């Protein structure tokens, strides 16, 4: 069985141009899926990715390597939260969610949130008129 973990990587400007992420595959046999990235040489960068390995320990070892190289590694899980009591189930968030983490359940037409699909792009926070979606800092 595969283990997966979504992480936010923060690259300080002095290492943003070094090929470090590829080491996850080369050294640790991990696969990764880049969900969002904004990295330019000599500038601070940020990358959101899903890391996939056989064991949880393998993933942790890979992430530990990135930390040693100076990359900030944070877990993405629980980053965006839906406050059910504030949701009126309009669906304003559904069409702007790039991963269908927010979707309209049928036939109830209630808005549902699948956290495991969320990439924390925060589009839902912009779209929600009732402040039902919030980032947990």
């Amino acid at each position, binding site marked *: 069985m595969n283990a997966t973990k979504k992480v936010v990587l923060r690259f300080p400007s002095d290492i943003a141009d070094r090929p470090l992420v590829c080491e996850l595959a080369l050294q640790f046999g991990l696969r990764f899926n880049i969900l969002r990235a904004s990295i330019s040489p000599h500038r601070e960068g940020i990358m959101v990715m899903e890391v996939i390995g056989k064991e949880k320990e393998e993933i942790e070892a890979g992430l530990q390597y990135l930390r040693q190289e100076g990359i900030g590694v944070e877990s993405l899980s629980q980053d965006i939260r839906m406050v059910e009591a504030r949701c*009126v189930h*309009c*669906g*304003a968030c*559904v*069409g*702007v969610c790039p991963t269908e983490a927010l979707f309209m359940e049928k036939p109830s*037409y209630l808005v549902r949130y699948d956290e495991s699909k969320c990439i924390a792009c925060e589009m839902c926070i912009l*779209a929600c*008129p009732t402040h039902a979606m919030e980032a947990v800092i």
Partner: protein
Amino acid sequence: MERVLRTYEEINEKIRSGKVVVVTAEEVIDLVAEKGVEKVAQEVDVVTTGTFGTMCSSGAFLNIGHTKPRMKIHEAYLNGVMAYVGLAAVDLYIGVTQPAKDDPLNKVHPGEFKYGGGHVIQDLVAGKDVLLEAYAYGTDCYPRKHLVTWINLRDLNEAYLFNPRNAYQNYNVAVNLSSKTIYTYLGVLLPNLGNAGYSSAGQLSPLLNDPYYKTIGVGTRIFLGGGVGYVAWQGTQHNPGVERTERGVPKGGAGTIAVIGDLKGMSPHWLWGMSIRGYGCSLAVGLGIPIPILTEEILYYCSVRDEEILAPVVDYSHAYPYGTGEILGYVSYAELRSGKIRLGGKEVPTSSQSSYARAREVALILKSWIQEGKFTLTQPAFPLPGVESGVRFRNLVERPASVNSELVGR
């Protein structure tokens, strides 16, 4: 003249005796598909409709009671949101799109519009204390000049919702053809046809179930904000002459209604303050109208399905703001509600601004009120202007004036 199956009086008699047959505008669709219009029209007395969405042209009149010494309020704020006071001494109107006085608006775009008139109304109906801050210039009969006090809905003399334009009969579908994200009242619209925003309960929506206003008119008793209200007048921008489909459904925003109802009987669940990013504050209103099945034709109109209701797709990056009138095409509410529409060969995800689940809930609540004998139907005192009335929505024809020295605004 079509055969009358039942009168308002007969329906109300059945409501009082607990024998009335009520179905929602959603339930009637399957019934008609199964049994046909003729048979269902014999069986069903009332069809209930519902909608729950942002309705910007809304607000409430409040009479706060007189102070000692008396005060003729000249400027007032409720929780920091300006209310209109150009009325008698202690009468106020709080409009739902009025943002808080200290709101940064769109200075940092897109603005958040965290709190406005709609939120004040939601707080009032929730029973929360609201801070009133009022100023006056003072007169011989109204000497007081300053007032800061907590007020509560239960203590107000009168508090009634009066919404000049609600329950739009159909509406635009908004898309964005430009290359940057735009922030509209139909939601965040992603560039290059990234998504489409729409707002109608479609087959459940009141005026789409009575497309020619055969039963909904001035004086019709309705579900409003969780309480009871009435249709007060045609809504502003009422535009019955819009092009219609073969079964009479307008192919764009057409009829509207002005509604009124006692805020004291309403609920914060059905009057919900909205913060629309980059656009402003507003209020989502729950509204439902019962349709008496007086004739077969009236039932036929109630059996309309989302597949049969078409909405115009409009580019909100250019065509809408500049009023070009250009329509990119038509899509049905069945397509919109499926989550994706096809436009120019592209699959476009859809975002609804009105809640279908809540619209359904309104129709079901109204149904239960009628079944339980708590809600009877009223015959309109006066019909809404129909297709034949010639009433139409016009744009302003500007007549430029060179009177700069006399201008008083900023």
